[in-house]
């Protein structure tokens, strides 16, 4: 009895009507292990070193910007009186939004039994974690005197003063920090079996110990898998409402205030759609080069890319609808302040930001109606970058509404300083440093999960019939011929 008794045709037949298989190239289980583990076990690539040094440099920029900020105060940023919230909140919302795609892929697509998620969920969840880390850094430094940060936690201080639980900003503290924590638990739970794989393959003592320590002594026991799958399902079920609540609460930061252009009920769904939209763009930006560099085009296939492009098309259309509906409601409300806020967005001093947003977020995703564009990685990659840019500008446009509120005497124009720029670029340094470390030290594709969606993972798969060591009769030969 050999492992490869099944034929190529068996591998490629998908039980669901004629869809492209999730794993190409007729791989078997061992090939999948090899393919994913190889980049981690190989010697460090020069390309990785160059990328890592670049990321570290940007991280250094962030370090310098933050040290100077803590030393000098938030005055080093371009904040002024009407615009008390500047790039820090723009970057915060941008990064939280990026994270949402990871949870959508890992939790919501899991509940919907979308098996294609297995090729991309690990890296997308890692992206979520690192994006949330970047996001959390902004409110942290934005408070200015960061040594007073414990005041956001419900710990009574010497004045017996508690945080205000009626404030969306406090809800935000809970929502984002819990989102980060639960994402970490979810990601780690998914990693346990793969860490065991890395442990069992590790050559060096240190690697064996490190992977072994975090694999917790996993031995693939099916009695363990039963509890594991139960826990995984619960984590998915909890993460699903969690991820929707997080950007809802982030939108409350704006929507609960009385500022024209912010005080709208459309904000929660509009923010969530935008978050998923931007997050999938970031997943594509990261995965399209990674699948080529790490030679995983058979695990992260064109079908994966096309599916993500379709989600971008859907969520991008939702975002475009939300932009239009905001205008409609502003007009329909008959509120002159509301109407002014929107006309001012379009034709006011920040018209350029508004039109960048519209071109990137409304026009770009519509390109994905064309199948050719959805299935050409380079085109998807370029369009995904436009979406990233557009979604950053969306948050900029929303935040900058502050520059012209009720009283013309208090209007002002917001200009970022070099330190604003340092924090934005620096946060990308933090993100890419963490992501590159992830690529180097952990399997970037969920090995166990990919194996479980391969056709031969099903114990009742056709291809096994002739390998049934005799006890169910002699009908197996016919199966063989059909397959051939």
């Amino acid at each position, binding site marked *: 009895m050999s492992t490869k008794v099944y034929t190529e045709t068996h591998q490629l037949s998908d039980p669901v009507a004629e869809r492209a298989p999730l794993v190409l190239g007729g791989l078997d289980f061992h090939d999948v292990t090899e393919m994913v583990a190889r980049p981690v076990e190989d010697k460090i690539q020069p390309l990785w070193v160059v990328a890592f040094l670049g990321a570290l440099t940007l991280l250094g920029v962030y370090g310098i910007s933050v040290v100077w900020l803590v030393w000098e105060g938030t005055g080093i940023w371009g904040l002024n009186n009407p615009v008390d919230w500047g790039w820090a909140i723009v970057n915060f919302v941008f990064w939280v939004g990026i994270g949402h795609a990871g949870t959508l892929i890992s939790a919501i697509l899991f509940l919907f039994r979308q098996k294609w998620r297995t090729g991309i969920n690990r890296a997308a969840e890692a992206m979520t974690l690192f994006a949330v880390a970047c996001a959390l850094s902004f409110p942290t430094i934005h408070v200015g005197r960061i040594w007073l940060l414990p005041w956001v936690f419900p710990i009574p201080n010497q004045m017996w003063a508690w945080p205000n639980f009626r404030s969306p900003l406090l809800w935000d503290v809970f929502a984002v920090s819990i989102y980060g924590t639960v994402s970490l638990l979810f990601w780690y739970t998914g990693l346990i*079996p793969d860490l065991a794989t890395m*442990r*069992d393959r590790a050559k060096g003592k240190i690697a064996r110990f490190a992977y072994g320590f975090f694999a917790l002594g996993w031995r693939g*026991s099916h009695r363990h898998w039963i509890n594991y799958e139960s826990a995984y399902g*619960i984590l998915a079920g909890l*993460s699903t409402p969690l991820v929707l609540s997080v950007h809802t609460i982030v939108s409350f930061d704006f929507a609960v205030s009385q500022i024209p252009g912010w005080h709208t009920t459309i904000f929660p769904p509009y923010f969530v759609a935008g978050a998923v939209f931007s997050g999938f763009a970031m997943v594509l930006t990261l995965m399209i080069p990674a699948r080529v560099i790490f030679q995983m085009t058979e695990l992260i296939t064109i079908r994966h890319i096309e599916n993500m492009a379709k989600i971008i098309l859907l969520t991008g259309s939702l975002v475009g609808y939300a932009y239009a509906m905001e205008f409609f409601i502003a007009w329909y409300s008959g509120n002159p302040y509301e109407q002014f806020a929107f006309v001012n967005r379009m034709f006011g001093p920040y018209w350029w930001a508004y039109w960048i947003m519209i071109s990137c977020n409304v026009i770009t995703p519509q390109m994905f109606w064309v199948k050719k564009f959805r299935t050409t990685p380079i085109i998807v990659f370029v369009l995904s970058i436009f979406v990233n840019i557009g979604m950053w500008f969306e948050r900029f446009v929303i935040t900058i509404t502050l520059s012209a509120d009720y009283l013309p005497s208090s209007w002002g124009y917001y200009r970022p300083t070099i330190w604003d720029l340092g924090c934005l670029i620096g946060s990308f340094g933090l993100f890419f440093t963490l992501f590159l470390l992830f690529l180097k030290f952990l399997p970037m594709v969920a090995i166990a999960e990919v194996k*479980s969606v391969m056709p031969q993972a099903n114990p009742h798969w056709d291809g*096994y019939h002739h390998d049934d060591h005799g006890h169910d009769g002699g009908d197996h030969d016919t199966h063989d011929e059909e397959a051939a």
Partner: protein
Amino acid sequence: MSSAATSTTAQPYGLLAEFDNPAELYHACEKVRDEGYQKWDAHTPFPVHGLEDAMGAPRSKVPWVSLVFALFGGTIPAFALQSWVAVEASRQVISGKPMLSWQAFIPVTFEVSVLLGAIGALLGMLIFNRLPQLYHSLFHSERFERFSDDKFFISIESRDPKFDAEGTAAFLRALGSDHVELVED
């Protein structure tokens, strides 16, 4: 264990049988289950669907741990703390709203419940699985390393009342395993 009384030190952990694919493992598990073994397990690189039925293994109790954590560690304390702070500890009149403006406490209550539910799910999984357990007798077997790659195993412990080193090994071989080995404790 009475049968082991004479040779306590030489008592092996049990037998480990290797299979090539999920189908072989599945059918073998059905046979082991029907034979009446109690202390045995299957080891697979990924969760093989339906194997719990082939093994006759019970459902997971992890959801209960998660529920208890979420409810008693999350929902109730979080809501109680916020209400107590608003009504007792730190009274603030905001927009003339009532002190117990409970609607405003829902977001934090929800988030904390999710956090505790998630912690409960992971802890429950670890507790019921008795993990972390960095040392295990099965790791003595070199071949067992491939459980996390592409091989499928059945282990039957010597503690099982039906265990008999030779008889059980022959039984496992008859199920189609090419490689059956005795694992030291």
